């Protein structure tokens, strides 16, 4: 059966759909977070080299992953919006940016607070760190550009171009690890010696990453709803909402 995707691409339909999905993602995010935190602090063993400092990994790595994924997803939706002139995808892209920037900041922050005890410096100009910093600038550039443009359609399209152009930068900065000698850790498994500990740690990390996913989705959905309302405040369906009519 053919699904009518355009139905879901209409902001009005999405508004209600998102409204029903948010509680689900919120609940799942909270549950995963609780499990993840429990594993991080009570199951995962003390590290052989780093003692307890390594526990930062449970937010650092999920945040770093999210920061990159969210950028790609944002660029994807922005590109779709530009190519097919679908309003909803552009709105989703704008909704992703702040969350992505927040995770990028967190990756930087937790990395810095991990680096101080491990490397003896808050910051080194290492490839991975630098690439993450540039990612933050890409997010901020995207948001500032959109904020500087009053007309939402123009803001969408302009943002899409800069987001797409910025994507080119992601592999470049990411693979530059190979061109620069780096202080930053490679695979996380090398952190601990025995496979059993690695498992506990890995599970913790993955669960925290999943929690971050769920959290991001919930945030993005709520933000998208706000953007939809802001842009469609004068349409018929919003006026219907005002009169308290519910739709399914």
């Amino acid at each position, binding site marked *: 059966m053919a699904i009518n995707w355009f139905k879901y691409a209409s902001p009005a339909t999405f508004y209600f759909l998102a409204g029903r999905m948010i509680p689900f993602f919120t609940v799942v995010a909270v549950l995963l977070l609780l499990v993840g935190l429990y594993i991080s602090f009570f199951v995962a063993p003390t590290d052989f080299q780093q003692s307890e400092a390594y526990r930062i990994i449970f937010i650092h790595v999920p945040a770093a992953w999210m920061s990159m994924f969210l950028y790609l997803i944002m660029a994807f939706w922005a590109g779709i919006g530009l190519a097919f002139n679908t309003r909803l995808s552009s709105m989703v892209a704008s909704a992703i940016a702040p969350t992505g920037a927040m995770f990028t900041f967190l990756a930087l922050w937790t990395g810095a607070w991990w680096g101080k005890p491990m490397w003896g*410096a*808050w*910051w*080194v*100009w*290492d490839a991975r760190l*630098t690439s993450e*910093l540039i990612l933050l*600038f890409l997010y*901020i550039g995207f948001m*500032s550009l959109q*904020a*500087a443009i009053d007309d939402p359609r123009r803001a969408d399209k302009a943002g899409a171009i800069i987001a797409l152009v910025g994507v080119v930068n992601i592999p470049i900065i990411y693979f530059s690890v190979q061109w*620069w000698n780096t202080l930053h850790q490679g695979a996380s498994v090398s952190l601990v010696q025995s496979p059993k500990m690695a498992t506990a740690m890995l599970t913790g990390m993955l669960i925290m990453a999943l929690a971050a996913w769920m959290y991001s989705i919930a945030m993005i959905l709520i933000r998208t709803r706000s953007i939809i309302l802001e842009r469609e405040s004068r349409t018929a369906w919003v006026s219907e909402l005002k009169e308290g009519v519910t739709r399914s």
Partner: protein
Amino acid sequence: MILWIIKRDLLLAMRRRADVLTTLFFFIIVVSLFPLGVGPEMNTLRIMAPGIVWVAALLASMLALGRMFSGDYTDGTLEQMLLSPVSLSALVMGKAIAHWLITGVPLVLIAPVLGIQYDLPAESLMVLTLSLLMGTPVLSLIGAIGAALTLGLRGGGVLVSLLVLPLYVPVLIFGAGAVEASAAGLGFEAHFSLLGAFLLVSVVCSPWATAASLRISMG
């Protein structure tokens, strides 16, 4: 009246909040670019840090100079300022203060964080911040003269740098010098008293010189 001007310029800046943030980010980005060009060795970077932060502050403040009068010039507000019953020097002082509040203060506030990137010790961070606090108003005040002189000239944006950079040099030398002196364990009071002297002189002379330049540019 001077308050009206400051209020207006801040209002204009707030109307586009991005505006204030972008000067700041320009500063951050420039400071962060150098290690990319120079390479990641911490010892070299630590030596360069005060110089780089100061040069970046100087460039950031200078870039924003373009906007100081040019908007008012092209839309005719400047004509009206010349014809205002209030003294032009006071108006100009207001504009310089607003420029400093918008471009200087955020730099001062963020500088310690950037210093950490270069692994500067705590005392140096403090001296760096203080030196910027005293130096950036001088940059705005001197810059106002340059901006006024190059008004309406094509390529004014680049010409203005040519005019003001030489005047910025002493501020740069003593500003960055103070930090280096403190890092080397020497006294930095002498540097600070010189920065203070620059500030005084520019507060006294710059509004007058800027007002004269404006009259010449509009004549």
